[in-house]
């Protein structure tokens, strides 16, 4: 085993005087699921946007298979095998569900026919195939989030960045989303999951990184994180209990 799939080294991002991330470091192996949690304003989405190339970091480095990628534009990052979803959904509203996913598939396969075939397969994988010919703008929020995941998967990523795909969903929809992420992991795609919904992230994450005020305050397996007093004080609240024995 050489370099990990993703290595974040002392990532710092400032917006003027505001320090959104300071010295954030963590790493992720191929096929792993990393949960990134923290209270509102902790800097989760900023980390996320730096990883996806939307914000160039102020300092620090991001390595993908050992290769420095910090500061590359989003389209280059996507080309290198990193796909993302958006916290506030951004589906192509005037296009059909199938066409949305085809745009993702076209990153690797420019021929329309091939892209369509692969998009259909991706839709079958995430269970959206019944809605293929619907205009994307007509889907429910849960379905639109699922569509974003499908579209990202169609780019054949090695690393998938999921930004609050479970927020605002019903209990049943959260269970479906958890099940989907589990199947994505089974394919061997690594994931960084930013999540507020605890029952969503705890059972599926291999490791958790907790951010508070832009800094990493804990990094470890979910069980340990859930019982870490620092984390409990900062974020989870006293009443939270780790599931199971």
């Amino acid at each position, binding site marked *: 085993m050489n370099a990990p799939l993703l290595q974040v080294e002392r990532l710092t991002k400032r917006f003027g005087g505001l320090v959104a991330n300071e010295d954030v470091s963590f790493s992720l192996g191929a096929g792993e699921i990393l949960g990134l949690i923290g209270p509102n304003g902790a800097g989760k989405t900023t980390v996320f946007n730096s990883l996806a190339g939307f914000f160039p970091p102020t300092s620090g480095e991001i390595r993908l298979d050992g290769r420095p990628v910090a500061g590359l534009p989003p389209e280059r990052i996507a080309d290198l095998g990193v796909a993302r979803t958006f916290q506030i959904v951004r589906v192509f509203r*005037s*296009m059909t569900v199938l066409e949305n996913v085809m745009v993702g598939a076209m990153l690797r396969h420019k021929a329309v026919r091939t892209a369509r075939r692969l998009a259909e397969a991706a839709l079958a994988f995430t269970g959206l195939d019944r809605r293929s010919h619907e205009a994307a703008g007509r889907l429910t929020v849960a379905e639109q989030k699922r569509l974003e995941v499908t*579209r990202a998967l169609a780019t054949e990523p090695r690393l998938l960045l999921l930004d609050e795909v479970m927020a605002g969903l019903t209990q049943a929809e959260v269970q479906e989303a958890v099940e989907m992420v589990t199947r994505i992991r089974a394919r061997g795609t690594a994931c960084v999951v930013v999540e507020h919904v605890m029952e969503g992230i705890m059972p599926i994450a291999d490791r958790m990184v907790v951010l508070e005020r832009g800094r990493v305050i804990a990094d470890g397996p979910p069980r340990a994180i859930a019982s870490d007093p620092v984390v409990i004080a900062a974020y989870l609240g006293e009443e939270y209990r780790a599931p199971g024995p």
Partner: protein
Amino acid sequence: MSRRTGLAVGLASLLGAALFPLLVTRPTWQNTAILMLMTAQLGVAWNILGGYAGQVSLGHAAFFGTGAYVSTLLSMRLGVSPWAGMLAGGAVAAALSAVIGWPCFRLKGHYFAMATIAVGEIVQALVNGWEALGGAVGFSLPFTESGLWGFVWGRSKLPYHYIALGLLLLTLSVNWLVTRSHVGYYLRAIKDEPDAARSLGVSLGRYKQIAMMLSSALAAMGGTLYAQKELFIDPGSTLSTSLSIKMALVAILGGVGTLTGPIVGAVVLTAIEEASRIGFGGTGRGTDLIVYGLLIVVIAVYQPSGIMGWVARRWPVPGPAPTGPPAVGLAPEAKSS
């Protein structure tokens, strides 16, 4: 409207356009038909950038004028056939669009549209003050021998009608090919959600540029046809901002981002213009602008997806695959800022 009905309407329109000058021999009517075809061609060309990619250009007259001037200068100075000049004009316009696109594509929505107005005005001012390009006086094209090589016909306007129709069909074919390739999908994605498109590996700059080069080259070819038909060009007739607005307007009126919308828009707009010209006489030099203004207001308020959007809602396509009326139009990227 089903696919089959659409095809039937399309073929009937093509047949009608082909037969029209043979059946209707009055010169004014024939001229109006040529104007409709030429305007439609420009609207379809504009639509590649403004409709599919959602980048509203209000400076396309710069490309139209480039086509008119390049072929005219090549023909007058070097004796090059305007047919070759038409291709050269397209190439020069595409190159010019790359120079303009590089800074302008950094701007979004309204700001892009405003920058293109500035570009159009700058080009017009440049030519106005440039003696070698005819200045404000322009050129009267020499009436050499009538015929195919010279791209000039004196007695009958019929050849212009068929050249305009051919050029429209060529432009439609390019448009159709774009929508059938990954480029068309990428352009629509860019229009809907530019950031999401980037996250899927789409280079905004590259694909907007491809759209702009195709769009400007085709508009320039229309410019050559105009020069050869009128045999007179000056900055006012080939580079004016009102011409730029007209190109955008026919597409928006008919329905942006649809293949045939600009044709419908061109027919309606040209009919209104000619009617108002006849009604107000030759002195009504400003009436076209009043008509444009009124139409913009009416479309923006009542029918933002244009005539074809209304048709699509009135007679929806049965069965699956409703692409729906495109989310339009005048401010496509406003939501992403």
